[in-house]
Structures are given as C-alpha cells and as structure tokens.
C-alpha cells in the first residue's frame, strides 16, 4: 500500500500549523500543559508531534480504528507518552476522561455524516469549558451535481440541512460552508442541555486542498465565567482567523523566488510584493501564508 505521507502534503501541513497557532491562544484559559490532546494520529502522528513540541502537552491520546495493526501503530508513535486506544471514535470518545481540559481534533477522512454528528454532540456534553474542539471533514462536492443535496441528506438526515440548501449552493466550497453550519447548529443544540450554560464559539475555519477539498473548523467551549478569558485569548488578532474561512492555496515557487520575496516581507502598510514574472494571485497568496508555508515546506 502506498499513501501520501501527511508530512509531504504542504497544504495539510500548513493547516496543521495554523491550528496549532490557534491552540496556543488557549493559554488565556489555562496553561497549555494542563490540557490533554485527543486525535486520530494515524501511522505518522504528525499532529501529536506538534501538540507535544509546540504546545507542550504531555497527555496525548490517539484513537485508531484498526486494532489488527496495533504493533505498527505502537512502533511508529514518536513519544512514549502517546496512549493509543483502538476502536471506533463513536465507542472510544465516550469512554475517555474529560474531567480536565481538552483539545480534541477529530480529523475525519469523510464528509459530515451521522456518526460524526454523534461524536461531536456527545463531546459537547462532556468537554469542560475552556476546551477546544477541532473537526476536519472532506468538503469535496458530490457528483453528479444534481445529486448533491440528496447525498448530503443521506449522510446527515434531511432535518439537519439548512432550508436554503440547494445543489447549486453545494458547489465548490459551498458544501464546506453548509457542513460548518450544520456542525455549529448541532453543537449549539447539544449545549442547551449543559447545566453550566457553556456554549461553543467558532474560532477559525480553514479550507485547504491536497488530493481533495478539505475543511477544518475550530470551536472553543466558553461558559459565562470564561468570557473574559475568551476576550484575553484575542483569537481574532491571528492572521488565520477572519470573517470568511481562510483558503490555503500552496503557490508553486522555486527556492530562489521564495528568497527574493522573503527579502520584501513583511510588506509595510499599503505596500505590495513585487515580482513581475509571477502571477498577482500567487503574490497575494504568498504574502498571506508565507509564515506557515516556509515552516510546512522546510
């Protein structure tokens, strides 16, 4: 079996780094080493490596479905402290300990579907205020085009789809927008039952594309007593946190071109990158994303 290494996919890696930057701001709620990190590490545990090195989190739990390959997962885990739990997320997530703070990154391969909604709705009731929930989903439009709404309904149920959703609206990144809306609705509905009146606040949305379109949404759980911590986190000041989702597009540049552009960065207010042989959209993209691009591509 061959697969594209998670490390070799620059857009996905840039997305990971952006998410880690967002997670750093959780230190406004509590010191980051007090958090536990829960995710789906795969064989390479890339996000676990980042969570441990960049966020200094020691309690790391990876959920893997295929227990017949336990030896391979155990061989590949980069740190002794990573605990691997084997089973479907639907079964493992309710069994974990949520008495402390958590960063929970559910990095799914597939589109939003009923089992994902079950996972997030269940977590919405268990996570402690100050925790972060990150969900990555496949956002590639279905085919044929006139079947998009029907297929979405088949995955999540007709009642969860926003009323104005049409096949046309689900084209390009429209499916990502609708999936985000459904997720937020489900989280907010689940939170109605929380005795502490905590609610999820949407913090960041990142759309990226490697082999297919993907989306990542980050939410932080905030109770009335943590509103000041939310303000202190200043998520909105991050470059990757905007009104509209950040689109991660990886410009194709040579190292010589990158060095030339880096020498102009950061651009002073009102200024522009100058390189007349490059496409303007590549210059714009590079200017917005170069910090993560450099780190992602080494």
């Amino acid at each position, binding site marked *: 079996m061959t697969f594209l290494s998670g490390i070799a996919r620059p857009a996905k890696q840039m997305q990971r780094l952006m998410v880690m930057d967002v997670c750093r701001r959780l230190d406004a709620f509590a010191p980051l080493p007090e958090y536990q990190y829960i995710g789906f590490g795969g064989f390479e545990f890339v996000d676990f490596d980042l969570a441990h090195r960049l966020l200094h989190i020691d309690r790391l739990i990876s959920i893997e479905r295929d227990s017949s390959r336990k030896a391979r997962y155990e061989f590949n885990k980069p740190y002794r402290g990573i605990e691997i739990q084997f089973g479907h997320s*639907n079964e493992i997530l*309710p069994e974990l300990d949520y008495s402390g703070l958590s960063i929970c990154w559910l990095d799914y391969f597939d589109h939003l579907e*009923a*089992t994902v909604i079950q996972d997030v709705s*269940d977590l919405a009731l268990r996570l402690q205020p100050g925790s972060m929930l990150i969900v990555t989903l496949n956002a590639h439009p279905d085919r044929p085009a006139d079947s998009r709404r029907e297929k979405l309904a088949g995955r999540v149920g007709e009642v969860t789809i926003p009323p104005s959703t049409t096949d046309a609206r689900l084209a390009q990144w429209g499916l990502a927008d609708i999936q985000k809306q459904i997720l937020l609705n489900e989280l907010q509905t689940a939170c*109605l039952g929380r005795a502490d009146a905590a609610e999820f606040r949407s913090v960041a949305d990142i759309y990226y594309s490697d082999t297919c379109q993907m989306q990542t949404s980050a939410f932080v759980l905030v109770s009335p007593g943590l509103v000041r911590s939310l303000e202190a986190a200043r998520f909105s000041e991050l470059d990757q946190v905007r009104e509209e989702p950040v689109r991660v597009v990886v410009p194709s540049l040579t190292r010589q071109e990158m060095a030339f552009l880096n020498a102009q960065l950061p651009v002073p207010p009102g200024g522009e990158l100058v390189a007349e042989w490059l496409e303007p959209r590549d210059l714009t993209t590079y200017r917005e994303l170069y910090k993560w691009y450099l780190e992602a591509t080494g």
Partner: protein
Amino acid sequence: MAEAVVETDAKRVEAKPEREFFISMLTRDIELIPAVLDLVDNSVDGAQSNKGDAGNLASFWIKVYADKDRFEIVDNCGGIEASHAREYAFRFGRPSDAPRNPGELGQFGVGMKRALFKLGSKFVVQSTARQSSFRLPVDVPVWAADPSPDWKFEFAEVEEAQSNAVEDCGTTITVSDLHPQVSHDFSTTDTLSRLRANLQLRHQAAVRNGLEIQLNEERIEPVSRELLLGEEFQPLHWLTSFEADGDAYELRVAAGIARDDDEEVDLEAPEESLALNKAGWYVFFNDRLLLAGDKTPLTGWGSATAAYHPQFRQFRGFIDLTSPNPGSMPWNTTKTGVDEDSKAFRVVQAEMFKALKSTMTVMNRVKNELAGDQDPSELISAIRQARMTVIEELPVRDRFLVPARPTVRNDRKNIRYSVSLQDFEKVAEELGTTQPPEVGRHTFAHYLNTQVTAPTR
C-alpha cells in the same frame, strides 16, 4: 342619584363562570388513572408530612377500592384539619398564602376536586386530624345547578378543639354514582391492571420507605431500582446540582446493565427475553415516576447510532430529579409527562444522552466479544460475576469500570454460518454445551483433528 345607579349597571358586563361549564373544563384534561393518582398523591403527602422523627413511612397505609359501583380511598396519613379544609383544601386553585411542605407533590390546588368530579356525581370526604374532624358530602349535580355566585361547600358535621390520637387520624373519600364510563372502566381487568402498575411505579420511594398501598386489598410491591455491580464491572452513577430558571435542583443519574430475576445473564438470546419491556429509562421527579422503561427519543434513543434494539434489553437507566419547590418540576399539569421545553429537563436529558451513549458502548462491546474468539472475554466474566445492587449503594463514577478491551489477534480467523435450530440442539446436547461459539470450536476441532492432521493410514 338614581340616574347614577342606572349608568353603573349599564356598564356592567357579566363574566362569572357557570359551574357546569367549569366542571367540564376542569375534568377535560385529565384521564381516569391520573385522577386516582392525584388522590393517592394527597395521601402520600400527608404521610410524608406526619412521619416526624421516624424517618420512614412504615406506620402509614393507603387503601384504594375501585369497582363498578364505588370508588373509595382510605388512609391513616394524618387527616385534614377542619380549618385547612374550610380555607384551602376545597378551593379551586391554590391561594398564595396556603401553607406548603417541602417536597409536597400537590402543586396546583385542583387535584382532589378535579379527581372527585371526574369520578362520580356524589362524594363524601370524612377526615379526622389531631385537632378536628369533619364530614363533607357533595351532590355534584345539585351543587352545579346552584345559581348563587357564592361558590362554597358545607360541612355536614364538624368538630374542632379536639385532641385525637395520631393512630386515629386519617381520611376516607368515597365516591358513589360513578359516571357510566368510570363504572365501566373500573369493572375491567385492563384498567385495574394499569392502575396497579401506575401505583406501583409512581410512589416507588414512599413504598420502599415503608408506606403500604393496597388496591382492592392487594398490596403494591416496589419495583427494583438495581444495577449490576462487581469488582471488575461498575456502572455509571453520579450526583450533581444545578440551577435552571432560578430554581435549584439535585440530580442522581445511574445507568448500566440489569440482570433479569436470579437467572444467569443470558447475553446471547435477546429476542426471546421477557425483559424487553423493562429496558429503558426510569425518570423520577420528586420521587414520582414520570417515565418508565422509556426507549424513545425523549430520553436519547432513536437516532441512527442510538436506536433501540433488543441487544440493549438489559439497559436500565434511573434519573432522580428533586427540588424543594414542586412548582419548578418540569412536568405537565397532570404530572403524567415531562415538559420537554424546560431548561431543567434539557439538563436532565443531556445527562441521559451521555449515560446512554456510554452504556451502549459497553453493551456493543459485550455483543462483539461474545462473537469473538476469546473464551470467555474478561468483560463477559466480569459481568457474570456482578450482583444486582440498589442504585443508592453504587459507587459514584462518571465512567464505567470495565476490563480493558482485548487485543485483536491477526493470526486468527472468524467463521460464521447458520444451521437449523434442530440440528444445532442435537449437536449441542451431544457436546454438553448450549453456547454457539463452543459448538463451533468443538466441531471445527473435530474436523481438523480427524480429517486434516490425522495420522496417515
């Protein structure tokens, strides 16, 4: 001056209710059994108020008689003082200055009157309390036909300034001239069975606390509130407090697996189990059972990954929600259902969703490990060694204590196939086992040893 009086009368617009209309509206939104339960509620309230230092209710009893000719409820739960009857008990609606006892079930001030009007055309309330006694008969059609705007009843007998012994205090309510439908219903086995089941379920805590309740001279027994507990297997049990809409609540949640009767846990034959109807959530508000064996979306069942299936027939979940103010309980006016829109119920619902999900995860593991090749799995063994324990005695924990999941071995292969029940039973009897995995292993081993690895002839 005369001119001024005429002007006032001309402006008057009549709005007083007709008694007949009032009775029909009052009795419209209550069914027969909830009406009887309202009367029993009052007696239970009386017992709770008068238990004093005893702590339990063992000295109190309530006897309900229901047949085609009459309905009667007799209790020794303390009686109603004449002054209370005179000022409060027979008013329609609860005056704001009426005294209230914490935890009292009665809340809206209409239960007794509504129930009596629902049952029949004539009723007599006789009561002896510590300081007074009275007898109050009502002929409902006569009362309803009275055009007087002065709404009142009248004692036929009343004595006050008494000093009555505690054991002589109690109330007897007799309803005669039952309405035709009520008379018919009380003559049917179905109604009496449902009434018995409701009495059994709805005053669980009081009955467990010693209160004796009889229906037609048969005692009501308490329903088990127990879950399996063992050294290696511990169910969910937690207590929490919360506030909702300005009211304070205490909540107990217990969920896990129950064994049916004293038999061995039959984890492999779900569809034949008689325990199917017992599975589900039991929700108590201030010790009154609102939901029994609920398996609907109201309590978390029904979605794609949480649909009820016979494999979950041993699920039991218990909710105890209490509040000192019965007016804050998230139930409807007849106390027969929940108010789904209330914040308090949403909090309860969220706790049920969590507990249900966790328990289903364990039960799915049981199913998978039964079908697996570990013989027996540690989880199955732990469950079989567990014992039924009342929920109040369960250790507090928000996650199941269960043995770790077994490692899936990739040097093994599962074999699955169906055979006729008759053939299975013949082979199983020959092998001395009833377990399909054991039959499979024996028969495979037999073939392997005799046909594959047998010595060459």
